[in-house]
């Protein structure tokens, strides 16, 4: 799950179904309880959308006018079913991105308001997340049911935004298409260039976003960027203990474990033990481990060390070795032989190996 984007459906052979489902469960509840429902409540509070708008939109909803098209499953084997849930989750997350942009445009809204109202600073305000227990089969059935329910609310919310005139169907459709445009894996492109071009690397480490602007990487304005370099003496790890700040405008979707409370709490208490336990990463005794806690306006990622056996490789080849985990200090960039193994078996993509509960 961590090869490219946080919840991007994995395209190779699957290795550990339970890990995939766990990741879907975690991400689904995160996006519902932290990203989507707090935003509805925020807009309800301010009269941008009312409960009655939602009810009316539900009544007016038909197969014809629905915005999100129903999904079809390809096959009935377990792999097809897992993939189906992952793809559905991906659409749900994109749907939240779609309506979030409209909500921001519709009014003077800042992230900090949202953090307060969704309980980042006070558990009292937190929306309860659902937990799933039971066999893998039972959990898959439950997740599918949840997705259906959550998707329906999203659909109704889109309809209400249109009905209230906060957006038009055309505008939303255009943005929906943009959200589906494939972009190259920026993390890989950036790191491969830094490994190959000393001047760029220097710029990346000192001026961050400016260096990316010069190389034409797509980026937004999510805080100042600081890139920290892993060396023979220092291993860097990134966290946001207050919420889950992440340079998503550059790196794409956040991996699910990065948002998990267990990781966020424990990595600043006992980092060596946590990276070993969660990611199977042994940081040698002589190496300093530095944890960067992005509590404010800075977003961090790690420049991993260039793996052995990569002399003479092109930037395009090098980019494939760069995993999301390696950009957060939760792993190393892959060696070429490891990449082959990952592509062959799918093993190692379902980090963390030991799942926090």
């Amino acid at each position, binding site marked *: 799950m961590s090869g490219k984007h946080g919840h991007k459906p994995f395209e190779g052979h699957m290795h550990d179904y339970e890990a995939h489902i766990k990741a879907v469960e975690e991400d689904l509840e995160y996006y519902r309880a932290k990203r989507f429902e707090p935003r509805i409540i925020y807009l309800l509070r301010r009269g941008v959308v009312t409960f009655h708008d939602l009810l009316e939109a539900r009544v007016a909803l038909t197969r014809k006018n629905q915005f999100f098209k129903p999904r079809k499953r390809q096959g009935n084997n377990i792999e097809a079913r897992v993939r189906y849930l992952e793809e559905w989750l991906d659409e749900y997350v994109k749907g939240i991105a779609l309506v979030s942009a409209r909500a921001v445009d519709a009014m003077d809204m800042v992230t900090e308001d949202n953090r307060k109202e969704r309980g980042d600073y006070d558990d009292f305000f937190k929306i309860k997340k659902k937990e799933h227990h039971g066999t893998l089969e039972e959990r898959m059935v439950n997740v599918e049911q949840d997705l259906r329910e959550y998707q329906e609310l999203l659909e109704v919310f889109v309809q209400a935004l249109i009905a209230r005139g906060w957006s038009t169907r055309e505008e939303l459709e255009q943005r929906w298409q943009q959200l589906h445009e494939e972009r190259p894996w920026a993390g890989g492109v950036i790191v491969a260039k830094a490994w190959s071009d000393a001047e760029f690397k220097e710029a990346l480490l000192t001026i961050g976003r400016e260096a990316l602007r010069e190389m034409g990487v797509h980026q937004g304005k999510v805080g100042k960027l600081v890139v920290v370099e892993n060396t023979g003496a220092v291993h860097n790890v990134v966290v946001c203990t207050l919420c889950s700040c992440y340079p998503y405008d550059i790196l794409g979707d956040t991996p699910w474990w990065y948002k998990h409370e267990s990781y966020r709490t424990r990595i600043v208490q006992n980092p*060596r033990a946590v990276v070993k336990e969660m990611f199977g990463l042994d940081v040698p005794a002589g190496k300093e481990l530095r944890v960067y806690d992005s509590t404010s306006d800075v977003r961090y990622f790690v420049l991993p060390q260039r793996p052995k056996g990569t002399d003479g490789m092109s930037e395009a080849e090098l980019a494939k070795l760069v995993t999301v985990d390696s950009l957060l200090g939760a792993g190393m960039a892959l060696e070429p032989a490891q990449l082959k193994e990952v592509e062959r078996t799918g093993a190692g993509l379902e980090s963390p190996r030991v799942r926090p509960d």
Partner: protein
Amino acid sequence: MESTNSKFKIGDPVVVASENPSGNPRTPIYIRGKRGIIGLAHGVLENVRDHRGIHEPLYTVRFDLSEVSACRDHDSIWVDVHEEWLSGLQPEEKH
């Protein structure tokens, strides 16, 4: 990046306030009252998408892991803290 009107410079020893001085909530509880060293100085950062108004200059403060947790490994935790949360220390007060 270092702004001229920032109060501290890289290497300065500082202590984090125990109580929230101004209602700015972006300083986590585990570093409140703890001592560290200025690791990076960012100056005043405008981030209008994130919060209203402009915060004081921002620093990344380096804490020994053992200062903020019971763990004795010789590792470090680097946390972003705004100036209003920080007071200077004499170098010998560090330990």
